[in-house]
């Protein structure tokens, strides 16, 4: 596993979408390679940031009422 391969699979690693074998190879590489480790931290933070920023919204209460009204005449 080299740095290019590691970076290429970084998102899949973060998303837990890799085969166990590839996942292990990436983990080992990250432990041994500080620059890739830094990038891993950066990307991980970015994904957490993204999720936090975008999940604050939910469906308006009025929409739920509207759906219930349309479906069940409530």
């Amino acid at each position, binding site marked *: 596993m080299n740095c290019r391969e590691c970076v290429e699979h970084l998102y899949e690693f973060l998303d837990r979408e890799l085969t166990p074998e590839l996942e292990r190879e990436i983990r080992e590489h990250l432990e041994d390679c500080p620059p890739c480790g830094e990038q891993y931290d*950066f990307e991980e933070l970015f994904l957490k940031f993204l999720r936090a920023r975008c999940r604050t919204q*939910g469906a308006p209460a009025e929409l739920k009422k509207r759906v219930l009204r349309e479906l069940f005449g409530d």
Partner: protein
Amino acid sequence: MAGIGTGGAPLTSGTAARAAVDVQHRAFIADQQTQQLDQTGAVEATRGAVRRGLDRDRIAHPCDGQPVLPTQLGAEDGARRAPRRGLAKHARHARHPFDGAAGGAAARIGEDEIGIRPPADQSQQGFHVRRLDSRVLAGKQLVLFQLHLDGGREAQTLHEQLIGELGKPILDGGIQVLDRLEDGERDDAVHHGARNVASPPLLRNSRHLTSLLGTAMTPPQSPSPDVSPPVDEKRASFEREALAHLDVLYRVALRLTGNPSDADDLVQETMLKAYRAWDQYEKGTNAKAWLLTILRHAFINEYRRRTRHPETVDVDSIEPFAVFPEVQDEDPQGAFFDKIVDDQVLKAIDQLPVAFRETLVLSDVEGMSYQEIAQILQVPVGTVKSRLFRARQLLQGKLYDYAVEMGYIKGSPA
């Protein structure tokens, strides 16, 4: 409005020319109309008016006067049916003026019509129901009239009516009452199948329906507990498994449509479609993915309807821009992200091409797996992977540019 009830070429059969009498199916809101129609005079007046309307178009039929008993659902007499615009057999492929510019887009059923979708194995069994009342709304019960002359009987309003609701199946799910057509379904596809809903045997399972037979305009009674469990169960499971995902649907709808009002409508439409198809959903499986698939289909249909050229950018050729090397020295921890507020992030997401946007939202906001996303978007997992990679990089690039612009980070000169 489409000329439902006005078209139809004469069909010659044997020695007698026969009128292509178009059937008018009429819909009332039961709970608003029945009270008035319950009075004998009103019923008669209505029947008279209906007859007058039908008589105008009527030409003698060889079978006139002979009783024709309603046959079973789907057992229609194709040879005796009048083709609508001469396209009875190929109606599904016919182009209709309603199609407008939107090619394969769904045809929206007009405001004063509703449609009925027949069982899947009876593709020619659809028909239109014309609304008489503009107050036909989802959630309101409709009396669906069959005022046909097929087979020579007088307009049979009293023994051939059904209770339906927009967006809900009737006859134990055999027929669906629609407020719009699905993608690919043409207005022409819902043409007349006169005997679909007339058969008493089909009504036998529904006390709610049979209670109306013979009494015509009796208002629908409130469902009593002993007949309502199926509905209650359906509702309960729908609320438990589908409505629980309203927030997810709304967030995704908001990112797809770009504004709260359209997002509301999209979610609403998704829920109606989902409820209509709830019997097809295997309970306890992945309701979120199932609902998102419906939502996305609805979005695409609407999107195609609105624009001829949805998206010309070849998203898969966009080269990603890696931000990390740019900030590696100055801010390897990505602290600048924290200074960017919600609205700016959402705005940046909204600027992504839709193929990237939907992939990123499903993954990074809603936490769905590549496999689930592939299923929803109907693309290979590899495409999900590559779009997600590019979407993230593109978004990072936009946020980075914004952070530089705002002075959150010095950045390297472009």
